[in-house]
C-alpha cells in the first residue's frame, strides 16, 4: 500500500501570520513561494477575517486555488528560539511559477528539520571531531583550531598544492552569492588554491566553456521567450521532470499556442509524452539519436540550414567575427573558433552521413532543420534552443555545445524575442568569487590526484563524491584507505595534547594519508571518512541570494533558525580564515597571516556586501532586493530608479557579444568536426558490454537525495534507484518488476531496481543518477574531455539479477509514466 500521512486537517494560517519571501532552493527555475509563520498556540479560522487568505475556508476551494496547502507544505520549526507553525506554499503572484509547486518545492516545509514533528533529524547540529574511534560533538573553537593547525602545516605562501578543496559553486540550496563569496575569498583570495573541484564534476571548470569562448553566456534569454517562439528545440533535457514549472508555466503555454517542438534525446521521456498530449504528435519531432551522436546531428542541421539559405546574413555580418580563425585549437580549446565561413567548411556533414551516424532518418533531420530555421512569412523563425546535461555530461562537450550555438548564431536567434540558446541548468546560480585564473585550463583532475596519492588535507563544502562523481568505485576505495590512515593515527594517540595530535596527523598524511574536513548539512557518505565535520545551514535558515535560469535574482528571507550550532557557509569560511590567521601568527608566519585578513563579517549580509555588492556596481542591497519580492530583478542589474532595481530582460539584445572578453564584441563560431566517442575508454566499453546505462534525474528526487533519503513519501516510491529496461530485455535476463539487479562493467558495479519501460529501446537502459543506495557513478569510467568535463552519459555495462524484489520494492507501482488522456 502506498504511503499515506493520515492527516485529516491542518492548522489555518491566521490573518496576522508573518510572511517571508522564499525562492525554492532546489532546481534552477527558482519558483516563488511564501513562508508563513505564527506562534504555536495561535491559529486562524475559517471566517474570512480569521485567515491569511481572507476567504471562507469552510467551503471547498476550486482547482488552482491559492487558498490551500498540502500536508507536505506544513511543519513546526524554531524561529528565534521559539516553536512556530510554518507553511511554505507556492506564490501565485510570482511570474516564474504562477502559483505552481513542483513535487520537490512543495515539500520544502516537510523537509525542514523539526524537533516537534521529527522531520530531518539527520541534519547536523554541532561540529564533530574524530576522537576515541568515532565522531564526538565539540565546540566551533575546538574543531576550527584543529582544522587550522593541520591545514597550516601543509600550506605555505608559495605552495598551497597540498590543500585540496571540493566546493560547490551553485546558488539555491545552501549555495548563493554569500556562500560562494565566503569560500571564494578564502581559497582564491587569501589563498590561491589550484587543486580544487566543484560539487558535481571532478575539476574546477565551466560546464559550458565553448559557448562562453564564443562570446555567448549560457543563460541569455527570458522565460517569456517560450511563450513568444515558433519552435522549441530541446536537447538532452527533460524539463517536465527537472525544470518542472519552467515547462508547465512557460513551455506548455507556448506549445499550446502553436509552437512546434524538436526534442533530441536517445530516450523517450515524459517531456515528449506531455508535448504530444498538449500539441498533438504532428507538432512534436523526436530525434531519437544514438547515444553521444549529438555533434554529428548539429553539424548536419547547420549544414542543411546554410544550404537552404535560412541564415541571417545581416546578423552574421554585424555581430560575428569576420575572417578565418580567431582562436586556434590547442590544449585549452578542443576546437578552433572563428568565422561563419570557416565553420561552414569545418562542420560540413551531409544529411545522409549524419543519418548513418545518429541512427535517425535523413528526412527527419531535414524536417528538424526546417522547423528550427525556415523563415516564416519572410521573417526570422523564432526558435528557443535549450540544452542540459544530456550534452553537458555527454560526448565531446566542447564541440557539441559549440555546434549548437553555431545554429543559434547563424539564424540570428540569440538576444532576440522568442530566441536564445541556453542551458536549462541544475541548481540556481549564485557565483561570486575572486578570479580562478590561477587554476589553469585544463584544470587539475582532482579526483584522479586523490587516487594517485596526492594532497594532504582535503576541505569539502557540500560535495559528496561518493554519490556524485565518476569512477566512483575506485575513488571510494582510495579515499577510505587514505583517510583511515589518519583515523588510525588519531586513535593510536587518544589522550594526546593538541600539539601531539597534530604531529600524529601530519605524520600520517606525510605517509600517504589524507586529513578530511567536511562542511555539510548532513553526515554524508564522504563524511563517513572525515575527521572534522562542520554543520552548515540551508536556504531559509539564513538570508540567501541567488539567480535562476533567466538570471532572475531574489532574496530568500531567513524564516527559521538553523539546527543547533550550525552556521552559514560564508561564516564558516570566515571562521576558518580567522583561525588560520591566528595560528600562522602564533607560528611567526606574519606575512602569510596577513593574507587572511578581511573576514570580520558579523552576518551573511556583510558577506553579500563585501562580495556581490562591491563587485557589481554597488547597486543591489538586501533592502532593495526584499522590496522586489519574489519577482526580483533579472541580472545584470543596471540601476535603481523610482524605488526599484532595474535589470536586463535578455542578454545581447544589442547584438554585441562579450562573454569571451573580446574588445570587438563579435561572436565566434565553433569549428568542431565530428570525431566519434571522444573520451578515453568509451568505444571499448561500448564494444564489450550489452547495455547502454544512460542516466539522469527524476522528478521527485532532488540532487543526490540528501534530504529525500529521509522523506517517507519519496522513499516509499523508490526505496532504491530504478533502472528502466524494456520488458523483452527483462525477460531475457529473467527479471520481474522490482527485482534487484547488479549493473557491472570494467570499472565497477552498482545496484538498482528493475522497472519495465516499454518505450525503451533494446539494450538501452536509463538509471537514476546520484542515489545513496546504488551509485550510478560506480560504473562510469574515468574518461573525460580535454577540459576534464565528465562523460557520465556514455556508459555501457552488463546486468544480472541479484535478488527478488525486497518487501519495500514489492509495494511499488510499476506502471507506465506516460499519461493518456
Amino acid at each position, binding site marked *: 500500500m502506498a504511503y499515506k500521512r493520515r492527516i*485529516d486537517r491542518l492548522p489555518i494560517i491566521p490573518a496576522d501570520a508573518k510572511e517571508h519571501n522564499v525562492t525554492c532552493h532546489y532546481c534552477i527555475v527558482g519558483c516563488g513561494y511564501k513562508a508563513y509563520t505564527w506562534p504555536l498556540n495561535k491559529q486562524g479560522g475559517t471566517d474570512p477575517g480569521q485567515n491569511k487568505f481572507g476567504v471562507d475556508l469552510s467551503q471547498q476551494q476550486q482547482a488552482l486555488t491559492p487558498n490551500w496547502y*498540502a500536508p*507536505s507544505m506544513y511543519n513546526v520549526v524554531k524561529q528565534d528560539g521559539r516553536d512556530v507553525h510554518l507553511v511554505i506554499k507556492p506564490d501565485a503572484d510570482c511570474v516564474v511559477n504562477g502559483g505552481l509547486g513542483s513535487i520537490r518545492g512543495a515539500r520544502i516545509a516537510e523537509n525542514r528539520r523539526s524537533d516537534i514533528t521529527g522531520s530531518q533529524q539527520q541534519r547536523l547540529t554541532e561540529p564533530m571531531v574524530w576522537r576515541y574511534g568515532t565522531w564526538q560533538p565539540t565546540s566551533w573553537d575546538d574543531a576550527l583550531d584543529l582544522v587550522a593547525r593541520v591545514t597550516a602545516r601543509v600550506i605555505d605562501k608559495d605552495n598551497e598544492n597540498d590543500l585540496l578543496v571540493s566546493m560547490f559553486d551553485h546558488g539555491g540550496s545552501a549555495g548563493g552569492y554569500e556562500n560562494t563569496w565566503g569560500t571564494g575569498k578564502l581559497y582564491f583570495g587569501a589563498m590561491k588554491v589550484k587543486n580544487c573541484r566543484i560539487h558535481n564534476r571532478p575539476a574546477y571548470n565551466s560546464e559550458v566553456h565553448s559557448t562562453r569562448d564564443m562570446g555567448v553566456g549560457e543563460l541569455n534569454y527570458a522565460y517569456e521567450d517560450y511563450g513568444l517562439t515558433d519552435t522549441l528545440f530541446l536537447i538532452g533535457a527533460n524539463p517536465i521532470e527537472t525544470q518542472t514549472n519552467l515547462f508547465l508555466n512557460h513551455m506548455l503555454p507556448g506549445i499550446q499556442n502553436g509552437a512546434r517542438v524538436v526534442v533530441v534525446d536517445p530516450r523517450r521521456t515524459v517531456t515528449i509524452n506531455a508535448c504530444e498530449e498538449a500539441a498533438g504528435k504532428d507538432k512534436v519531432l523526436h530525434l531519437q539519436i544514438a547515444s553521444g551522436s549529438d555533434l554529428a546531428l548539429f553539424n548536419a542541421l547547420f549544414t542543411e540550414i546554410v544550404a537552404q539559405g535560412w541564415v541571417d546574413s545581416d546578423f552574421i555580418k554585424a555581430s560575428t567575427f569576420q575572417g578565418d580563425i580567431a582562436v586556434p585549437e590547442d590544449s585549452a580549446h578542443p576546437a578552433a573558433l572563428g568565422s561563419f565561413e570557416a565553420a561552414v567548411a569545418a562542420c560540413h556533414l551531409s544529411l545522409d552521413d549524419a543519418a548513418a551516424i545518429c541512427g535517425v532518418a535523413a528526412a527527419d533531420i531535414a524536417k528538424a532543420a526546417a522547423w528550427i530555421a525556415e523563415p516564416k512569412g519572410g521573417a526570422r523563425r523564432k526558435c528557443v534552443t535549450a540544452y542540459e546535461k544530456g550534452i553537458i555530461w555527454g560526448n565531446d562537450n566542447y564541440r557539441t555545445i559549440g555546434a549548437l550555438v553555431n545554429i543559434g548564431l547563424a539564424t540570428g536567434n540569440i538576444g532576440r524575442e522568442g530566441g536564445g540558446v541556453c542551458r536549462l541548468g541544475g541548481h540556481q546560480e549564485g557565483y561570486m568569487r575572486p578570479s580562478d585564473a590561477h587554476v589553469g585550463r585544463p584544470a587539475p583532475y582532482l579526483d584522479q590526484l586523490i587516487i594517485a596519492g596526492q594532497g594532504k588535507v582535503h576541505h569539502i563544502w557540500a560535495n559528496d563524491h561518493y554519490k556524485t562523481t565518476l569512477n566512483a568505485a575506485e575513488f571510494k576505495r582510495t579515499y577510505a584507505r587514505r583517510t583511515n590512515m589518519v583515523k588510525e593515527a588519531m586513535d593510536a594517540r587518544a589522550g594526546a595534547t593538541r600539539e601531539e595530535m597534530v604531529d600524529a596527523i601530519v605524520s600520517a598524511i606525510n605517509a600517504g594519508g589524507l586529513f578530511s574536513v567536511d562542511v555539510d548539512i548532513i553526515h554524508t557518505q564522504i563524511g563517513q571518512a572525515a575527521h572534522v565535520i562542520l554543520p552548515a545551514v540551508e536556504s531559509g535558515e539564513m538570508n540567501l541570494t541567488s539567480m535562476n535560469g533567466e538570471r532572475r535574482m531574489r532574496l530568500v528571507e531567513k524564516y527559521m533558525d538553523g539546527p543547533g550550532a550550525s552556521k552559514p557557509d560564508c561564516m564558516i569560511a570566515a571562521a576558518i580564515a580567522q583561525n588560520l590567521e591566528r595560528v600562522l601568527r602564533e607560528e611567526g608566519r606574519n606575512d602569510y597571516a596577513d593574507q587572511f585578513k578581511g573576514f570580520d563579517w558579523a552576518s551573511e549580509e556583510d558577506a553579500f556586501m563585501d562580495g556581490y555588492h562591491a563587485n557589481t556596481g554597488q547597486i543591489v542591497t538586501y533592502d532593495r532586493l526584499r522590496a522586489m519580492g519574489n519577482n526580483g530583478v533579472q541580472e545584470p542589474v543596471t540601476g535603481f530608479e523610482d524605488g526599484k532595481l532595474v535589470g536586463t530582460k535578455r542578454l545581447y539584445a544589442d547584438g554585441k557579444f562579450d562573454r569571451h572578453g573580446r574588445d570587438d564584441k563579435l561572436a565566434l563560431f565553433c569549428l568542431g568536426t565530428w570525431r566519434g566517442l571522444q573520451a578515453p575508454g568509451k568505444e571499448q566499453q561500448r564494444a564489450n558490454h550489452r547495455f547502454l546505462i544512460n542516466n539522469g534525474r527524476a522528478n521527485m528526487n532532488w540532487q543526490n537525495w540528501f534530504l529525500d533519503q529521509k522523506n517517507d513519501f519519496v522513499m516509499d516510491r523508490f526505496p532504491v534507484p530504478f533502472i528502466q529496461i524494456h520488458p523483452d530485455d527483462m525477460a531475457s535476463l529473467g527479471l520481474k518488476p522490482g527485482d534487484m539487479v547488479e549493473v557491472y562493467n570494467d570499472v565497477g558495479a552498482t545496484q538498482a531496481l528493475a522497472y519495465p519501460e516499454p518505450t525503451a529501446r533494446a539494450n538501452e537502459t536509463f538509471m537514476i543518477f546520484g542515489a545513496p543506495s546504488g551509485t550510478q557513478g560506480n560504473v562510469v569510467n574515468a574518461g573525460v574531455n580535454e577540459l576534464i568535463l565528465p562523460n557520465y552519459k556514455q556508459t555501457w555495462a552488463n546486468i544480472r539479477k541479484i535478488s527478488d524484489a525486497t518487501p519495500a520494492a514489492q509495494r511499488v507501482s510499476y506502471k507506465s509514466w506516460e499519461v493518456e488522456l
Partner: protein
Amino acid sequence: MKCNRLVDAGRRQFLRGGVLGVAGVAAASVLPAAPAKAEIALARVAYPSNRVGNLKDLKVDEPVDIAYPDDNSPGILLKLGKPVEGGVGPDGDVVAYSVLCPHKGFPLSYHAADKTLNCPGHYSRFDTENGGQQVWGHATQNLTQFELRVDDAGDIFAEGADELIYGRLSNVLQA
C-alpha cells in the same frame, strides 16, 4: 477510454455545484462566553458513514461517480476485477478514491487499460490498484483513498479518508 469522458462530465457537475447542503458531521460550535472558555475540539475529524453504492451496480472498470464526505468532494467507486490491499466486497476488489488531483485539484479521469487515474492539467497519474500511489507526477502526496464498508445487503458505505483532500484544510468542512 472514451467512456471516461462520461465520468468526467459527471465530475465537472460536482465542481460547478457550488455550495449545496454540506453533508457530514459539523463540529460542535461553542459560542464565546465570558469569562473565556476553551473551545472543545476532537483530535481528529469525525467522518460520516455515507452510503455510496451497492455491489450489484458495479461492473469491472466502470467507475461510478460518488461524493464523500460531502457533495463538494467528488470521487469514484470502482470495481477492479482483482483483489487489492484495502479492497472490499466478496472479491476484495472494490475501492474508492477522491478524483481531485492532489497537485492542483484538476478532475482525474480513469484509464482502464492500466487502471490509473490521470490528470489533464499537468499529467500526473495514480495507481488505483496500489492505494492511489502516484505513478508519476507533481503531487506531494498519494491520492486520497476512501475507506469502505459493505453490509449484508451489499450496500457500500464510505467511512473515512487517508489523506487530506485537495481544496480543503479539513476533510470534513467546518464552519
